[in-house]
């Protein structure tokens, strides 16, 4: 016991020594024993939760700072590394990401509590304005933070914001260039945004928050009349307990979203690629939707994006004065609720419209897929010094569908869509109204091109395989009534007889093997051998073909066995290497070549001059499935086997 007494005595001595020199006891006493007229209340917790979330952001932000690298070649890359490789990076970034969103909600709740309680009125006007300054700082923090990962989503959303800055009267372009660190986005946009996000804005936040709390303590909590009659309480421990429980609830929510959803990272920012899923973060969605109204648009961007929000902020700043009038407080409360209702309504419209827009959904899915894909490639190959974007630029899985959509989808489809999982639409006029309808394809759906399923379908159901050609006018009709169509009509009943199932399989296997595609491997040598005989001799298990494949089509088998024939010339496509990398490249370059359709029968434009060799390779490699695949199922999940 003596030891303990001695110890506590020494401890008290030290604390007294410290108190003599700092006066901390008084400060702690004042802080904790602040009287709360009417006792502790749940409705007083919002300010504390905001301070708590800010503290969470400071802590997680400092640790993220230790791993983040602000430049256009390293921002996405370092965030990818934080998120996917470093231990607990997903957790720290997830907390930071969702706490930022929680802050916006808590800001709204705190603001409403202040307005409803009339806490903005004299003598608390100055503190109300300090709160409005803090609100702007928080908005600034979310805006600058959104860009830092340098992914497609943040890049395009922030571009809208800086372009809005650019339309400011008089000084717009100068302001915009100062924010961007130049006339366009680049390294200095990131260094400047990062300095704002991690240095200047947090420092301002700390200063204004200290002032805000100091002035708040000066006037105390605004207590409603009905509560004033109840016994008083103190800040410690009753209100602190309520605050702590509320903060715990906020933290639990943040952690729930971190584990359940995780902070997202779409593909690396690409200035050369249109991003049709561009939307601001959900809490700015109402403003986005507001600017989309035709009436607002007519009045100009300055009006919608600067004057209207400016006027609203102006009314809010004047609320302490408005509140002095007889009906002033009622107006302020009504104005706040009207704002909330308006924002909720606009957000709901925006979400509903996007929910109904299939192409927007596809764009969102594509952006998410690019994020996964970039991470997958980075993990497998490491990121070259030219950045993660170059991984995507060299990736057939990403570029192939884009090239298909741009160059092929005006005639062809890929499993019913344009390659990017978007339905091809066209505008027509009906009863004087312009409406969007699906545009019918005029050439075959190439989603399964060259696969066993494709070859089987071609040999047994030609008219179905090339059905879209009936939309291609007279020449398309010719295709559907040509020799091959007739051959299939004559031979498909024989080929489809149950006794000939293996013969058909053999012929299909033989043809599929010619392209040597990786994704179709392994091939069955016995089936190939059987197929070769049928191709040349036409003899099936039951019956024979009306004419042999080799009567018309040139074929030098891929396994080096003897040539099966030189074909019947232009218009009878050479099947040597059929549907393989080289065959497809040659075909797409010039389908009218005499070894393919020939000038007379060909309908497809040549792409030799339209596609560079690199683009052609990317497109074809995608079509034949020759690209890196990780072991787990593709997130895009668009290839069906």
């Amino acid at each position, binding site marked *: 016991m003596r030891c303990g007494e001695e110890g506590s005595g020494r401890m008290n001595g030290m604390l007294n020594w410290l108190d003599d020199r700092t006066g901390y006891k008084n400060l702690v006493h004042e802080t904790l024993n602040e009287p709360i007229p009417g006792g502790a209340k749940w409705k007083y917790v919002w300010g504390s939760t905001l301070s*708590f979330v800010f*503290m*969470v952001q400071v*802590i*997680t932000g*400092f*640790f993220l700072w*230790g*791993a983040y690298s602000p430049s256009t070649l*390293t921002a996405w*890359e*370092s965030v*990818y*590394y934080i998120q996917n*490789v*470093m*231990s*607990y*990076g997903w*957790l*720290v970034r997830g*907390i930071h990401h969702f706490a930022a969103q929680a802050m916006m909600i808590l800001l709204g709740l705190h603001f409403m509590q202040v307005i409803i309680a009339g806490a903005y009125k004299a003598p608390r006007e100055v503190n109300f304005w300090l709160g409005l300054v803090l609100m702007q700082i928080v908005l600034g923090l979310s805006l600058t933070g959104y860009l830092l990962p340098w992914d497609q989503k943040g890049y395009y959303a922030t571009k809208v914001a800086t372009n809005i800055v650019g339309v400011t009267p008089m000084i717009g372009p100068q302001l915009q260039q100062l924010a961007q660190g130049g006339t366009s986005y680049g390294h200095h946009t990131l260094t400047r945004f990062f300095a704002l996000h991690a240095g200047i804005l947090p420092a301002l936040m700390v200063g204004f928050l200290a002032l805000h709390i100091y002035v708040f303590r000066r006037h105390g909590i605004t207590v409603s009349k009905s509560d004033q009659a109840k*016994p008083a309480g103190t800040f*410690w*421990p*009753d209100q*602190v*307990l309520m605050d*702590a*429980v509320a*903060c*715990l609830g906020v*933290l639990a929510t943040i*952690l729930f979203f971190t584990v359940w959803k995780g902070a997202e990272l779409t593909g690396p920012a690409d200035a050369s690629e249109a991003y049709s899923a561009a939307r601001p973060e959900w809490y700015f969605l109402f403003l986005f939707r507001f600017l989309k109204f035709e009436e607002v648009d007519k009045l100009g961007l300055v009006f919608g994006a600067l004057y209207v929000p400016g006027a609203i902020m102006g009314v809010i700043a004047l609320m302490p004065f408005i509140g002095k009038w007889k009906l002033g407080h009622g107006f302020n409360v009504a104005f706040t609720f009207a704002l909330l209702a308006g924002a909720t309504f606009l957000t709901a419209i925006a979400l509903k419209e996007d929910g109904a827009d299939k192409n927007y959904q596809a764009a969102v899915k594509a952006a998410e897929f690019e994020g996964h894909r970039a991470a997958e490639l*980075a993990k497998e*190959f*490491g*990121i*070259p*010094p030219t950045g*993660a974007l170059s991984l995507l630029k060299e990736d057939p899985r990403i570029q192939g569908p884009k090239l298909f959509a741009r160059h092929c989808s005006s005639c062809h489809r890929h499993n019913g869509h344009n390659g990017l999982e978007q339905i091809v639409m066209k505008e027509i006029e009906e009863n004087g109204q312009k409406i969007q309808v699906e545009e019918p394809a005029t050439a075959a759906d190439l989603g399964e091109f060259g696969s066993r399923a494709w070859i089987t379908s071609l040999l047994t159901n030609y008219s179905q395989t090339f059905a879209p050609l009936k939309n291609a006018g007279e020449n398309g009709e010719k295709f559907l009534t040509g020799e091959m169509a007739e051959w299939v009509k004559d031979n498909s009943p024989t080929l489809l007889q149950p006794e000939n199932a293996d013969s058909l399989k053999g012929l299909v296997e033989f043809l599929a093997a010619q392209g040597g595609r990786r994704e179709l491997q392994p091939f069955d040598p016995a089936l190939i051998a059987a197929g070769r005989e049928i191709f040349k001799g036409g003899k099936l298990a039951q019956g024979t073909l009306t004419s042999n494949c080799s009567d018309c089509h040139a074929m030098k088998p891929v396994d080096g066995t003897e040539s099966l024939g030189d074909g019947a010339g232009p218009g009878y496509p050479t099947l040597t290497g059929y549907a393989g990398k080289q065959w497809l490249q040659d075909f797409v370059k010039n389908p009218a070549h005499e070894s393919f359709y020939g000038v007379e029968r060909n309908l497809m434009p040549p792409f030799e001059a339209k596609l560079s060799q690199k683009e052609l390779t990317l497109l074809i490699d995608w079509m034949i499935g020759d690209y890196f695949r990780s072991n787990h199922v593709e997130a895009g999940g668009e290839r069906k086997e």
Partner: protein
Amino acid sequence: MEPSSSLPTDQTTPRRKILAVLGAVGIGAIISLTPLLAGLSFFLDPLLRRRAGFKGGDAEGFLAVTQLSDLPDDGTPLRFVLRANKIDAWNEFKDQSIGTVYLRKMPGNQVIAFNDTCPHLGCKVDYQEASRTFLCPCHASAFQLDGEPMNKIPPRKLDTLESKTDPDGKVWVKYQDFQCGVEKKGAVG
């Protein structure tokens, strides 16, 4: 205040207050430690995770350096640059220098490979033709040709690396960095 209402308050307040204090302190600890501990665990990443510094070489991690026939027969050390794909956090840089080694051909075509990093404080040692020794330019550590220290400055001999010679006469070295400044040779990471 009326005694009837203050009496029960007086009785319940101490216990209520203790519970409130315990609750506030407990929950306060949880909510402030959670982000802090998450951040600290993240900060400890370099200790929690093993990372390769380079990618390349054969299945056992040996890198091809030179031909055995290119090494002088008298055992004179020659310095070689080892090249592989260097991994730096998220980046992979193709075909970079990842380190330098001294190779010596010994009788019987045995090869000795030294990591040329001084075990004292990590400068690169240089072979001195005149004295046939390795000398460190930073703190004058000196080593004999066999790597034994010649003064008290280095804590241990020069670090040898595993090497092998394949049937084609190519010399392979397994490159590693070792902890400086300690007596015991231990690989870093």
